[in-house]
């Protein structure tokens, strides 16, 4: 195992990914908190198990690794849900994680239902198809969670949650998310330290909605750059002027702030028209862990 910031002999791009010190983490501490989180939030509501969608990417691989350590491999089930245009490497990588962790898994090809649906809408653009696929996977995970008496484990990281780079009620849906407060560059550090296969940690992140797609090309910037900006913007609440003084281009700041603002709805429950004096989530406020 390699701890963040100490790996002088680690491959170049790993140290490069961890070079921004304010987002460097102590992996042992974070692992301990997240394992406790999974154990506590799953078990106290009466469950022992989780199901998780495995894409072969670093986020779901890390979440599965944490879950297997927290609950035991027998209590974690990975769902591999490829579409016929998915990169075959994604499934191979996901299977490598399954083998490494010794967890149960099932492959559910979502092509038949997706193709049957889009036969009605042959002109649907890739993003629309991608959203439908994400929601198809979500319904499968929630069905599995019923069948296996398990909770759905979330795999969205903080960077994509802030940027809205996910499908609402699709991959953003879950019961319990252990990695939603870790930026992508922190996910890399923790995954590396926990022994997620190097090939998975180092490959270009992709939603795998079409061949050759990568997050960073689609977003138009690198995770390393945007995490640095998000750190100053979100964690430190720097003003626009301060961000520019920190060396960020105004155009880059505008694009990122726009994404954060415009995706706020994805991070909230649907807006409810207020009529009574105790409206859910506005003035009817109870903790989620009510009674636990």
């Amino acid at each position, binding site marked *: 195992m390699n701890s*963040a*910031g100490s790996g002088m002999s680690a491959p170049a791009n790993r140290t490069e990914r961890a070079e921004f*010190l*304010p987002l*460097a*983490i*102590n992996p*042992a*501490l*974070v692992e*301990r*908190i997240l394992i*406790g*989180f999974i154990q*506590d*939030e799953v078990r*106290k509501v009466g469950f022992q198990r989780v199901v998780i969608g495995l894409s072969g990417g670093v986020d779901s691989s890390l979440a599965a690794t944490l879950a297997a350590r927290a609950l035991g491999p027998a209590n974690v089930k990975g769902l591999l849900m490829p579409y016929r245009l998915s990169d075959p490497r994604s499934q191979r990588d996901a299977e490598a994680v399954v083998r490494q962790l010794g967890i149960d898994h099932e492959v559910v090809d979502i092509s038949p239902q997706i193709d049957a649906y889009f036969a009605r809408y042959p002109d649907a653009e890739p993003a629309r198809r991608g959203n439908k696929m994400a929601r198809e996977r979500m319904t499968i995970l929630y069905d599995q969670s019923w069948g296996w008496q398990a909770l759905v484990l979330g795999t969205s990281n903080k960077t994509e949650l802030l940027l809205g780079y996910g499908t609402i009620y699709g991959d953003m849906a879950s019961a319990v998310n252990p990695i939603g407060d870790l930026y992508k560059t922190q996910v890399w550090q923790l995954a590396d330290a926990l022994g997620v296969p190097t090939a998975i940690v180092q490959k270009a992140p992709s939603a795998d909605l079409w061949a050759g797609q990568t997050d960073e090309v689609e977003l138009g910037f690198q995770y390393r750059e945007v995490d640095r900006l998000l750190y100053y913007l979100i964690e430190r609440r720097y003003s626009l002027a301060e961000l520019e003084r920190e060396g960020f281009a105004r155009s880059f700041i505008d694009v990122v702030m726009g994404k954060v603002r415009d995706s706020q709805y994805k991070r909230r429950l649907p807006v409810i028209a207020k009529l009574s004096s105790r409206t859910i989530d506005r003035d*009817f*406020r*109870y*903790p*989620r*862990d*009510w*009674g*636990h």
Partner: protein
Amino acid sequence: MSDDHRLRVTLAQMAPALGDRQRNLEAHRGWIGKAKATGAQLLVFPELSLTGYFLKDLVSEVAITRDGPEMQELASLSADLDLVVGAVLEEPDHRYFNASVYLSRGELRHIHRKVYLPTYGMFDEQRYLASGDRFRSFPTGYGRAGILICEDIWHLSTAYILSLQGVDLMICPSASPGRGISTDERLGTAESYALLCRTYAQFFTTFFLYCNRVGYEDGANFWGGSMIIGPNGDLIQQQEDADEALVSATLNLGDVRHERLSNPLLRDEKLELTVNELRRVWHERTREPY
């Protein structure tokens, strides 16, 4: 040194269930039984140990009253050892307080109502709770004590006020959620509390008991790290991790005197000067008409 100069103190670093007072009361009985078996004379529970912390609208549902049956039941548990228990206290005028009560020999001896209610970031206490209006010390069988709840100790004046009342023992029940990850082995919150508690102990030459809870509520982790610190600032005992545990030490109460003889900070403290200067500052700050 006679036995009455020693105090076997225990901190119950436990994880209350959120909004389930009955279950927590049972848990208290369990911890009290275990602590008694190890000879504890004073057992401290964390902030809101009877209810859990992020209560929101549950505050009114889990509250107890000063004269109610729940308080009597708690008091009855203090027949053989002194207790500090955290609860939501409803006053007759229906204000709700985040309180820690000191119980001894079957009776309620002191109530501290949390004064500094954090209402920023992840905290929302002032939305649900009324704020206490005093920092009072009180006598115990083991010297003078004072209670400060969690955020109270982030305001340095609180411990100063208790110190000038001559306390031997500061007790801080806490429900501190951990946050602030870096390359350090401990959370930023844990570092801050360690700094505060040891500073108070050493520079007010008093024993300091910090009892933090553990467990998770709505994804927030409580980091534990409960500490017993001597009047010279030395860490006598600490629970390093966030597991449920009893944290115990036998204190030599004479150490307060020893420390104040070699380090007479309290003797040299200029209360009148402080009061006068604070009054002057207050006048200057309130002098302007708008």
